């Protein structure tokens, strides 16, 4: 029953990103046996012997009382992780063949991630960009951060062209600690250029996750007759025959996805392709399952 409500078209009827995020996250968490590891966690992981310099706050005094030895209690995600979402708000993200366009879907996705991170007391931040950095919410785990993030998401609107260089430069300038950087975009740029632009983030020790959000029509366009297509970002016009869209374009988009996936994986990034017609919780569940398995 819940899955039916998490259909993107249904999510679009829910007013308020906070409610959307809560609905999504609570839904899929309820279906998991164990909470996902997404940064800090209150769940015990292991004990480690104390070494000078360790923070005394994490010493398990109960163990010390019984054994007179100092042990530190380790939890999952203990590495002070911060979640930074880079949301592509270029014009192409405004495209949608059904009620939920890519930007809406990306907002739901980002909101869900923020909710999840906040629920685990991770710091979360947001950078909205197109060819420039449009909005920035610095990562923080303070109270009220979720509201700030969701407001920023609400403000995000489809802008102009995409330029990955500027938001990543901005990110690199402000990246102070290791964390998880999530990029939500339709990635209309050469795969090599995308990976080359984002690779420095990975070099800083942060994990990089690419959410490739595409509309079903972008993946499998079906034109009954020749159409005059207009590029949402450049305004370029081109007549496209149904046969071309059915055959060559599909092979090209599949090749683009495959290349991006391959190059990202090679560069140590996580890559997930998400169709906007797909239920959001299902997509998140798959992503978290994969991450959990890898860890």
């Amino acid at each position, binding site marked *: 029953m819940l899955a039916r409500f998490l259909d993107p078209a249904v999510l679009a009827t829910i007013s308020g990103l906070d409610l959307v995020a809560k609905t999504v996250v609570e839904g899929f968490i309820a279906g998991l046996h164990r909470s996902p590891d997404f940064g800090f966690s209150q769940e015990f992981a292991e004990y480690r012997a104390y070494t000078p310099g360790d923070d005394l706050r994490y010493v398990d005094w109960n163990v010390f009382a019984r054994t007179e030895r100092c042990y530190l209690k380790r939890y999952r995600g203990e590495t002070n992780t911060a979640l930074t979402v880079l949301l592509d708000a270029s014009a192409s993200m405004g495209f949608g063949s059904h009620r939920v366009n890519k930007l809406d879907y990306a907002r739901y996705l980002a909101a869900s991630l923020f909710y999840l991170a906040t629920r685990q007391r991770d710091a979360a931040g947001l950078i909205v960009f197109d060819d420039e950095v449009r909005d920035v919410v610095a990562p923080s785990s303070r109270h009220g951060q979720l509201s700030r993030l969701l407001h920023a998401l609400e403000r995000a609107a489809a802008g102009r062209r995409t330029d990955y260089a500027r938001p990543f430069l901005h990110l690199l300038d402000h990246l102070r600690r290791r964390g998880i950087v999530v990029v939500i975009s339709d990635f209309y740029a050469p795969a090599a250029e995308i990976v080359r632009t984002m690779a420095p983030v990975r070099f800083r020790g942060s994990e990089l996750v690419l959410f490739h959000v595409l509309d079903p029509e972008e993946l499998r366009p079906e034109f009954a007759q*020749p159409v005059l297509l207009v590029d*949402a970002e450049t305004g370029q016009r081109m007549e496209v025959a149904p046969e071309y869209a059915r055959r060559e374009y599909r092979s090209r988009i599949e090749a683009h996805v495959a290349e991006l996936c391959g190059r990202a994986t090679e560069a140590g990034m996580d890559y997930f392709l998400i169709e906007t017609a797909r239920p959001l919780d299902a997509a998140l569940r798959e992503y978290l399952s994969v991450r959990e398995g890898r860890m």
Partner: protein
Amino acid sequence: MGLLAPWFLAGLLALALPVWLHLLRRRQAPPREFASLMLFEPRQESSVRQRRLRYLLLLALRCLVLAALALAFARPYRQTAAAAAADRLVVLALDDSFSMKQGDRMARARKAALGVLERTAAGERVQVIAFSSTVRELSRPSREREPARAAIAALQAGEGRNCFAELARALRLIAESERGPVQAHVFTDLQKSAMPASFRDLELPSSVRLELHPVVRENLDNWTVEAVDVPSAVYASQGVRVQATVASFSSQPARKRLHVILDGRLVGSREIELPAGGRTTVEFLLPEPSHGAHRGEVRLEPPDGFSEDDRRLFAFERRDPRQALFLHEARDRRSLLYFRTALEASGLGAFRLESATAEEAPGRRLAQYAFVVLSDVGSVPEEFARALRHYVESGGGVLVALGSAVAARGQAGWPAGRVAANADGHESYRTVADMDRAHPCLAEQGLWEGVRFYRVIQTETGAGRVLARLSDGVPLLWEETAGAGRLLVFASAFDNLANDLPLHAVFVPFVERVAAYLGGLDETPGSLTVGASLSAAARGTRGMAAEVIGPGGDRLLSLEEAASGRSFPLGRAGYYEIRRAGGRTLTVAANPDPRESDLSVAPAEMVTWWRGGEGGDGRAEILGIGPARRELWQPLLALALVAALAESLLAGRYLTRLGGTA
């Protein structure tokens, strides 16, 4: 290979239309936003594929239809001379019209034809035809030369009129019956007057190659008796007026003497001056002839280079006037007065009008009358009505005029016809609105527009042919069919009360023509042109025996033809004697067509054009005449038709598919 009308190849430009439709036409689809065109190849492929040749087979068929049509109209041909030589038919056409009697024209034509005959190849078939106003086959197509040689040698000039259009028509028929090419050699004096008004009548199919062999090169001065105007029947006791027209076909004036010979005796002679290229009309008044048929001729002397046309024959008959019966009501004398006066004033003289009242009518023997007039007769005794019907059905003529007596009785006396309720006159007058000028009674008459009709009796016209209508559509004059005779009904009277027709100038010619029509005076002229047809039987006696004696004293009709009284052509000049049933004999003179006397040769440029230019190929190009050419337009049209059918089927399938998709 070649093209007879290459300018039609411009039609190939129409091929651009289907190409445009299939290849270049841009879809006017509304623009549609898409996320990114990054993955759509910016080169031509995606868009050109939209413009690609849609439905290549359909495009090919459409182009094929247009190309085949354009090529067919361009009339492509291929030379098949070698293959067709064995099938070639050589037609030797000799002009035997009247003008060929001049000098040795006919002998020269025969000699030239024999020369061509000797030069024909052994395998070729040869046919000999003679042409004037008609074309006659003198020998069948054959590889034997002797029948053709004999036919040429025996051919003599006749009295017909030359007509090149008739020759061209015959050659077209020969070409239709022949599979192979036809080589036509024409031996003629190339009279200018024989050329048709339209060059199109000279057109020949492409399989016919024409070669002209003129037997004369220059014009010849000639004078002729062009026409003789003599009435075919003479009734008056005074003399006979003969009017002769002499024509000059010469550039020089001439002085000639004209003689009139009647029944072998010279009855008139006059010196005349003829202007160059002009005409002179001379009138002779002959003394009163005796009763019966007379034969005469007008002769021009001294003879010129073409003496055969220096005389013209004529014939007439001296007859007694025939009786005509005018029936009227006893109180109506006015109609008789006007009708009789008009008939006498016409100068016709062929009828003597006898009047009687309706009560006196039964005692008359109608067969003795040329025609009968029933002038506003309200009632007719039944026995006389039967006699009238029999009279008409036997070939007699009756004119019925309807007036106040008929209106008072409510029904016409004869033929019985109910008077319509609204027919009893109008306070205002009506005029004639519509007349059948083609009818002999109304032809060449003056205006009837001024005639006022106050009383018109409207009866049932039945299946009769309406000849005149009034302004309100009421029939005024109509003719009813009644056996072999003629029955005219005039819906008004001649009393100058029902209308004012008797006071108008048109009344006299109307009465004259009605009398001539009903009395049968329009039947046979005394002089005709050779080639005309003449009915052996008189009107109303069709199917009865008649005998025709030709100019040579021979009987022209077989026993069966004579028994049926059929028409016969006047093939020779001279006197024709027609002996009809009842012992009546008619003499008709036949003369050659006067246009044959104009010996002017067709202009050089016209001859050159007809011969096909200096080299003989120019006209062939124009008319499509060539040596053994086989035109290809028919298979091309067939190809276009097949392609069009295939295109229709294919397009239908595509449309069905598109409809299903939508």
